[in-house]
């Protein structure tokens, strides 16, 4: 038999799963998953993102995929949409970079500048 506390625990646990059917609020993390993205290794990145979000129990974060973001040479690309803020685009993302993006950017609100498209373009310019 379940007590009121047990019910609340089940409720919260299931909420993590069903939350994405409710109206979207909070942060949305989108991975470019067209042919170019998948070929460049977007799938492990997507899985790492889902893992990390789940590990930290982040409820208002949706991980989704999208088509080609456009800069195919910089795939895999990840875009983070936070309500009220400019979108941040990360490029050439690998699974290893995911924990930092989630911790520093999504949880603490500080984008990891060195991974962003801006940083990547500066590097290209210097070359």
């Amino acid at each position, binding site marked *: *038999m379940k007590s009121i506390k047990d019910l609340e625990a089940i409720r919260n646990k*299931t909420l993590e799963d069903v939350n994405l*059917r409710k109206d979207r609020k909070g942060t949305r993390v989108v991975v470019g998953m067209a042919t170019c993205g998948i070929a460049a290794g977007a799938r492990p990145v997507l899985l790492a993102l889902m893992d990390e979000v789940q590990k930290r129990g982040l409820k208002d974060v949706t991980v989704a995929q999208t088509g080609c973001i456009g800069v195919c040479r910089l795939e895999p690309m990840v875009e983070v949409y936070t309500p009220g803020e400019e979108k941040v685009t990360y490029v050439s993302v690998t699974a290893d970079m995911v924990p930092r993006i989630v911790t520093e950017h999504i949880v603490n609100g500080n984008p990891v500048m060195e991974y962003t498209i801006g940083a990547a373009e500066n590097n290209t310019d210097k070359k």
Partner: protein
Amino acid sequence: METFRSHVMICGGTGCHSSGSGDLIKAFEEQIKGNGLDKEVKVVRTGCFGLCEVGPIVVIYPEGAFYSRVKAEDVKEIVEEHLLKGRIVKHLLYHDSINENSGDIKSLNEVNFYKKQKRIALKNCGIIDPENIDEYLAFDGYKALTKVLTEMTPEEVIKTVKDSGLRGRGGAGFPTGLKWDFCYKAKGDKKYVLCNADEGDPGAFMDRSVLEGDPLAVIEAMTIAGYAIGSDQGFIYVRAEYPIAVQRLQHAIKQAREYGLLGKNILETGFDFDLEVRLGAGAFVCGEETALMRSIEGKRGEPRPRPPFPANQGLFEKPTLLNNVETYANITQIILNGADWFSAIGTEKSKGTKVFALGGKINNTGLVEIPMGMTLREVLFDVGGGIPNGKKFKAAQTGGPSGGCIPTSKLDIPIDYDSLVSIGSMMGSGGLIVMDEDNCMVDIARFFMEFIVEESCGKCAPCRIGTKRMKEILDRIVAGKGVEGDIEKLEELGNMLKESALCGLGQTAPNPVLSTIRYFRDEYEAHIKDKRCPAGVCKGLMRYTIIADKCKSCGICAKNCPVSCISGEKKVPYVIDQDKCIKCGQCMEKCPFGAIELK
């Protein structure tokens, strides 16, 4: 528990199920596995989304992409494009879910069909997996029962239901809180809580959809009712023709028992309540409360005179509370959001929302939930999408065989209990059948009367004999044998039946006839006086005739006539003997010169 990044919601309601959603679930599971996505994407079978017209329906979250009329062949494309690569397959989306200007997809609430709806009873339908109690819990399930058992007295529960203004959704519209109060005050060592899921009106499927899509909402509400009136035993009376609903209901009861949400000492509060399902054999009269109770007792389902009312003497002669499925489906929301929240929706005397099953000549056949007070025009043309094939609206029928027809001139009346009664119809349980210019109102009235004659239990003479006589007159009229005075006779019989029948079935049975006479008397007169069916429906009034100028006297029609009613000889046009003609149309089909016409 694992989390998935995407959920594929496939409608498992009866409508979509019969258009093949079962195969879709399999196809999705295979394709998802084949693409190695089974750890990322979850397939969920839900209850009815409401837009049965374009089923089977598949909605994919988090995008909220609304795919309609999905076929098994489409699944590969959806999985490979949408789920694997994240590109929504636009050509398979429901046409109205794409923003015409920007090409973006709209969220479900912006689609015309859903925009004006307000979902309370159908809140979870299409959103949760009805066979997973955890999902029900996550969408606020059992919060209402917890609140009731830990914070409220039975009197407070009853007061909340009373203050909300909720009225019975089975059709008659009796105030629900009052009913609960009568039962609470009735004296008895044992009391029962019943749920009427014997939905029998032709074309109505609201209750079925609630039971299929969100069975635990009904179970939780019945448990709350048990606490409020002091009962520890409930029964859900559901028709055996609803196999999916019955199976999900039984599954839900089992899960609730496993969680200790039914049975002894619920939520460790010392409150006991259990539920059983009773199957009805599909007799229409068993939707009447006293007949329903007889049937649960294992006796022949026949009504008995009231009083005593079931609140005092119902099932097994004990105080009994009976509510309809949709009524219960509102209860948890009223408890959680408060009486004021609920009574702010709707009109002065009709609070909240009403679920309607739209059917007949309407574009968006399906299930809609609208706030009370919306006009019929809005329901039919904004939500329902209007009449197909550019035809003209003629009438809408509410309340099934107990209700009446609403003509074009009354399209702007607000939908609430009292307005509908004032124009000779009734709210009914929620069947809404739309008719266009091609429907014959006399034929419709005859159809409903035929239904009643078959379903009358025969216990009281007015209903047993009266409905039969009315049907005979209607049969005569549609066969072209109506005589002057038939309309008046129908009215007299109808009014007498209303006054004298034993139960609601007989008392409301003349409504379809009386309301069509009221608004479409000219059609009746055309049938009787001119022997003409203006809509061209009644076969008995049709005549096949041979156009003398076009007839070449070949004799093919006579050879093909199954009753040999065509005669003639060479060089003289053939003639059809109208008395013998059975109107099969063979002659017209076979005539090589198009010389036979139907009028």
